[in-house]
């Protein structure tokens, strides 16, 4: 069958899955007075439509920042404004200032879900299709399978269409950045990424790889000649894009400061709730939140994050190829997730995006990571009433990706690039590391299934009411740490000069 029909079928299937999930409950459904992220998005539409621009980020009588104040960069605000205009056409009650607070209705839910679908269809899905067809390797069948598997990644579907957020826009724009950079258009790529950054400040997790990649390319082209020209072009693009996005706020420095203050709330502490990163897991053994002061916590997390991302970034700087770029994206965002300040469990989507891009090259570790990332958000899904979609999408993703990408066939030591592990485990020369990995994978998936079942079916003991969320987050943390190590080793162990003979992964 021709490519276009196969791809259309995959996209339609992905869209069906998305809409089917969106018919379920959303965050904060029926839970006054604060509700949840769904109400936050609706509130931003109300605020951006009714109030003038200079009041959006400020605490005024009309705009109470304690009730879901705007804490994303201006592009989110503009998008909310656009949605609000459409909402006004359909039903003005939805964005009525003050009166629409806590508004929940069947029609409104359909409208909000539709906005997510439209944004996804326009931004994320085309990027995925373009990536699979132009930047991934293999036969046409393999490319179509890649499209399907990326589109079926449960974490993004459940958060965007279940919990309710617009991650597909920021992740989609970042993916456009990767695709365009991969095709060689550096200026446009940086433009796309800056737009992505201006949609959600969490994209800073991806910023260092983009920076190092582009800088590395400039160095390679010679800093005296074309490299410098490229650098200047990129810098100008970045500055101009920033200026354009922040245009309404540039008139008053107080505006800019306030927006930055809203974007980076440094007063909030090392972590909130249960999240699968180092600090929360460490907190189980040592109560670091109480031992260290907030400032010390900040510096501590800053230093550990920088240390974690340093090797990967330096390697990328020295060898700016697409393969290194993808790995660096994974390593950087995962390191940020594990060691940074005030991380939310939803931020796992940031490393998940580049791992999706690795589905074609390293199927088994990628599937493992993606499944673990979905699993790590289980407590959130349970709170939102999304158990059935979680189970179904996870099972579907596992079956499809393992079967279509032949994950278990590409499980040899060589294909998994386990060379350095072999050198480390010199004492056990006879162990087949590929087999070991496969068995670890089976065990892990079974454990995840078991923990999921227990979280739902069993009641935690009275002394430990948070037992299951804690177990889930610690279990996921161990996975993320192990995979961070693995991806770092894969990236750094690669020789700086590509080998002359036919290497499978062309650099």
């Amino acid at each position, binding site marked *: 069958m021709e490519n276009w*029909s196969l791809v*259309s079928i995959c996209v*339609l299937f992905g869209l069906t899955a998305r*809409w089917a999930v969106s018919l379920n409950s959303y965050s904060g459904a029926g839970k006054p007075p604060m509700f949840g992220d769904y109400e936050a998005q609706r509130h931003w539409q109300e605020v951006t439509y009714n109030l003038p621009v200079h009041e959006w980020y400020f605490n005024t009588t009309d705009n109470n920042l304690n009730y879901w104040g705007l804490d994303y960069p201006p592009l989110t605000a503009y998008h909310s404004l656009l949605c609000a205009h459409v909402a006004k056409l359909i039903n003005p009650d939805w964005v009525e200032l003050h009166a629409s607070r806590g508004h929940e209705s069947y029609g409104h839910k*359909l409208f909000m879900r539709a906005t997510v679908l439209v944004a996804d269809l326009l931004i994320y899905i085309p990027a995925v299709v373009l990536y699979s067809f132009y930047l991934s390797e293999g036969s046409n069948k393999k490319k179509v399978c890649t499209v399907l598997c990326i589109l079926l990644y449960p974490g993004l579907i459940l958060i965007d269409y279940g919990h309710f957020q617009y991650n597909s826009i920021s992740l989609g724009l970042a993916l456009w950045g990767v695709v365009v950079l991969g095709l060689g258009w550096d200026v446009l790529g940086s433009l796309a990424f800056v737009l992505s950054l201006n949609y959600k400040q969490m994209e800073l997790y991806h910023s260092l790889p983009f920076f190092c990649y582009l800088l590395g390319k400039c160095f390679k082209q010679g800093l005296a000649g074309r490299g410098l020209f490229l650098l200047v072009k990129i810098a100008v693009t970045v500055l101009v894009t920033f200026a354009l996005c922040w245009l309404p706020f540039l008139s008053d420095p107080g505006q800019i400061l306030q927006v930055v203050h809203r974007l980076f709330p440094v007063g909030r502490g090392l972590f909130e709730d249960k999240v699968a990163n180092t600090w929360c897991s460490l907190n189980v053994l040592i109560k670091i939140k109480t031992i260290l002061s907030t400032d010390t916590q900040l510096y501590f997390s800053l230093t550990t994050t920088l240390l974690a991302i340093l090797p990967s970034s330096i390697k990328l700087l020295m060898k700016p190829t697409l393969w290194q770029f993808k790995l660096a994206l994974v390593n950087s965002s995962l390191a940020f997730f594990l060691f940074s300040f005030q991380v939310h469990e939803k931020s796992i989507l940031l490393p998940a995006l580049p791992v999706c891009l690795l589905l074609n090259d390293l199927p088994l570790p990628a599937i493992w990571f993606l499944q673990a990332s979905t699993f790590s958000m289980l407590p959130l899904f349970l709170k939102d009433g999304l158990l059935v979609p979680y189970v*179904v999408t996870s099972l579907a993703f596992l079956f499809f990706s393992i079967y279509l990408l032949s994950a278990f066939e590409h499980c040899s030591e060589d294909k998994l690039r386990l060379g350095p592990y072999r050198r480390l485990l010199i004492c056990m020369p006879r162990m087949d590391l590929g087999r070991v990995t496969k068995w670890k994978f089976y065990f892990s998936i079974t454990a995840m299934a078991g923990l999921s079942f227990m979280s739902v079916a069993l009641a935690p003991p009275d002394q430990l009411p948070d037992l299951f969320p804690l177990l889930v987050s610690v279990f996921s943390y161990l996975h993320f740490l192990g995979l961070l190590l693995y991806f770092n080793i894969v990236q750094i162990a690669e020789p700086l000069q590509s080998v002359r003979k036919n290497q499978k992964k062309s650099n």
Partner: protein
Amino acid sequence: SISKVHCVVLLTMTVFSGYFSHSTDFEVHRNWLAITHSLPVSKWYHENTSEWTLDYPPLFAWFEYSLSHVAQHFDKEMLVVQNLIYTSPATILFQRLSVIVTDIVFIYAVKECCRSVREEKGSKDLLGHPFFILAALLLWNFGLLIVDHIHFQYNGFLFGILLLSVARHLQGRHLEGALLFTVLLNLKHIYLYIAPAYGIFLLRSYCFTKDNTDGSVRWSSFSPVRLVALGSIVISVGALSFGPFIAMGQLPQVLSRLFPFKRGLCHAYWAPNVWALYNMVDKALSVLGVRLKLLDVAKLPKASMTGGLVQEFQHSILPSVSPSITLICTLLSIMPAVLSIWCRPRGARGFLRCLVVCALGSFMFGWHVHEKAILMAILPFSILAVESREDAGIFLMLTTTGHYSLFPLLFTAAELPIKVLLMLLFTLYSFTSLKKLFRGSLLNPLETTYLLGLVAVEILCEVVYPLSPWQHTLPFVPLLVTSVYCSLGVSYSFIRLYVSLLRQHGTDKHKQL
């Protein structure tokens, strides 16, 4: 391994739909679970606390009874007859799971059908194999998904038995096929529509063991043993199912529940058959008559001018149609096909073609036909569609139109994207895969234009019309337009199918001369 993938696809798509809002059919089956569980057998066909009385044959009641034993572990309250419209999450979960689990029968039947498909020689990749395409067309059938998993019925289970019976006949295991069909008849009596095909085929091709050289009946080869075998199967299954009720003297009551002829020529939404066109002509003539002052408005029945959704639709100008007339029309329409497999039997494939014609014929002319009945023609026809080019063309026409006619079943705004996406998925797949299989275009330009017109009808009915001022005064117009437009397509497919059947009959006759 192919079936594994298909299973997964089917299961995921079905479980996705697991959380859709319930429809009336949901309450119907819950009620039946309650009746069979809580009441003694003698009361099953007398019970009428709920308006959804038991109107399937007794074997289905026994099926619901066995389900109810599992149901009591999910939520005991759903089994209380008085709990009308009871929809706890456990109830919904159980009902949806029961459909999914019974679909295993369907998956097995599809596997058996795929084994019997004839293939041309030549290496093809997996996606191009006829049996893969057949499996996809059956397992991902849009109509079945919509009706079973969203709207809620047990059609997967029932069609599984039907397809398994067909597969057995294709494989030459006729007694098993007959047994399965008798079981099916006792589960849902709507399959009486295709009983003539079975009856004549088994009589002609199974009871008469040999044919004359010119293909006509060799009376001497009649085998009473086989006839007795078939008869005993039918009688024993019937006894198992109806036996208890005959013993209790309740047979008339059961039959009156099974065949309620009071319901009206057409459903509230006209199934796209001949009577829809008949109604349309009648309505148009009466409107025309009033405009041209030939008729007096006061003399016309009220409902014919303003509404279209009444059960008892009275014709104002054309003669009214009674149940017996529909029966006669149906029998007349299937007579040529049935006669053709008597005179010139073409083995199991001829039988299958006759079966599809019978199903379509009774859909076209039957009394109070539900649009879901189109699946009875579409699903078996899929087997023929992957084997012959001409059949593939007719199949595409019938299936696209038939599936589109199911759209009004899902009328909420939330379900609109789902039905559109699934329809696009199935249509895109069926067109591209069959085109690739038979190498070339399968539809002529007129047919393609007609099918593209479906898109226009959809936009008109679901987007444009609700925003227009007539939505409140004449709310039935979208349904009417859908019904009439689809009946054109279905009738056309019926005629083409008949022509191909008679043409084959004609060529057979020519071979003898």
